[in-house]
């Protein structure tokens, strides 16, 4: 499914919630349901620097698509990670690089969630995009001229 389509799905889902408590409960559920990343990736090197909460990041490139494994010791942040993974994992590097993540604003995360205020989430989004750019560069360099 295309990035925009998934974002629209998430926005529709969040429209069903009347208040922040319902949104939080949903994010907690998403956070709990997101499988933890493999222990071998839970290393110091894979920690995202500067985040208040320990957040591990690992990406893979397979069949022209980027897959992300991300984990956090905070369930609520894991909930937001689950949304990012839903939108961006398994997409083409170019699409990830160019993605306008408007759903973050539309579902009210920006105003209501301190992970964003703490910049942690933007660091994560940057990292997701950076890795996509790296894979894209790699593909382009290996193309026959």
């Amino acid at each position: 499914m295309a990035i925009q389509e998934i974002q629209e799905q998430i926005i529709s889902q969040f429209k069903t919630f009347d208040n922040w408590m319902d949104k939080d409960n949903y994010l907690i559920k998403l956070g709990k349901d997101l499988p933890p990343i493999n222990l071998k990736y839970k290393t110091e090197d894979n920690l995202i620097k500067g985040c208040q909460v320990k957040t591990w990041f690992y990406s893979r490139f397979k069949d022209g698509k980027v897959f992300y494994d991300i984990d956090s010791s905070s369930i609520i942040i894991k909930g937001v990670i689950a949304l990012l993974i839903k939108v961006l994992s398994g997409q083409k590097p170019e699409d990830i690089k160019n993605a306008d993540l408007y759903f973050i604003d539309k579902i009210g995360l920006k105003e209501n969630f301190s992970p964003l205020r703490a910049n942690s989430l933007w660091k994560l989004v940057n990292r997701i995009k950076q890795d996509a750019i790296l894979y894209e560069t790699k593909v382009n360099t290996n193309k026959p001229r």
Partner: protein
Amino acid sequence: MYETKNTNKISVFDITKIRNDFPVLNQKIYGKPLIYFDNAATTQKPRVVIDTINKLHSECNSSVHRGIHYLSEQMTEMYESTRKKVQNYLNAQHSHEIIFTSGATASINAVAYSFGEAYIKENDEIIISEMEHHSNIVPWQMICKRKGAKLRVIPINDKGELLLDEYKKLINSRTKLVAIVHVSNSLGTINLVKEIVAISHENNIPVLVDGAQAIQHENIDVQDMDCDFYAFSGHKIYGPTGIGVLYGKERWLNKMPPYQGGGDMIERVKFEHTTYDDLPFKFEAGTPNYIGAIGLGVALDYLRGIGLDNIQNYEKKLLNYGTTKLTAIKGLKLYGTAENKICLFSFLLENIHPYDTGMFLDKMGIAVRTGHHCTQPLWEHYKIEGSVRASLVFYNTFAEIDSLCEALKKIQKMYSK
């Protein structure tokens, strides 16, 4: 209204009136009345401090010292009389033992640099403790690195109390200074600083006390404590930010070189050589934060008006009430259970990250701090990354503690689904 008794008088501690003195408390956060439990990070300012700062900027502003004109003389008089006020508050022997800095961190760094330059040599040792704030670790690490000296650490027990027998064992002929926190910002423990100083002085070793979390709760008498240096920040005692104090015994301050050069700290400057001014100016290079200092003085007056005994009695009752209420919550673990502590609760809810707890408390209008609270080495003792910290002062209420407990139970419920 809450009544407190002390040995000399029966006074009325009017919490409603006190809360009205602090404008910031009278607001709603996300539609809920603000409950401000982040006082260990910074305290709110009474109206009298805010008004004074405003008035000084609007009507009196002028740089202090060497001014020939009226405004400068007036400001100099207020600034220097504040120095005397702080001297009285700490019961220091001389007013020139009071150095104005930008805060406790600057005060500690000043001693680390200045004392370190004069007295620390290769293989010397500096003693700190396991519960120090980074501000009382890193400056000493820096001087140790420069001089090839070593840092030694007094361990704590699980209640968060210093092990004084271990402290005694650490002292040796190479020990040059002991730098110890008076009250732990993460656990609330009130350390036996007088005893620590006495032990150190038996071995002729000077002691710096980091009073950042003690000054707003404890009666500080630097002569009785006999510490050689005492550091604190204005903003943690209801004063403005950007102002702090370093108390130092005259004999040490006289022997120590200045740590910053500039205007106001000199006697005579020539290109070949400069001679320095006397205390306290030798340690106050540049235009000082005179308005901040005067604001701090007003905050001290305000506290005296309420009475530190009254404040302590009330805060003790808050501590006992809060401890009983919080420990009754299943799945809540308190960190820092020393016999002698201030009204500060460091805790974790089982299986809930402190960040999550703090975030949801915020949404319910309750301001706490989460994380390592600048004491990362301390948390290694408890094998955790940090905690949720609710730090209370005399403008907080029993009802606010009830609200915190209800909010915590609500968070637990959200996570148990």
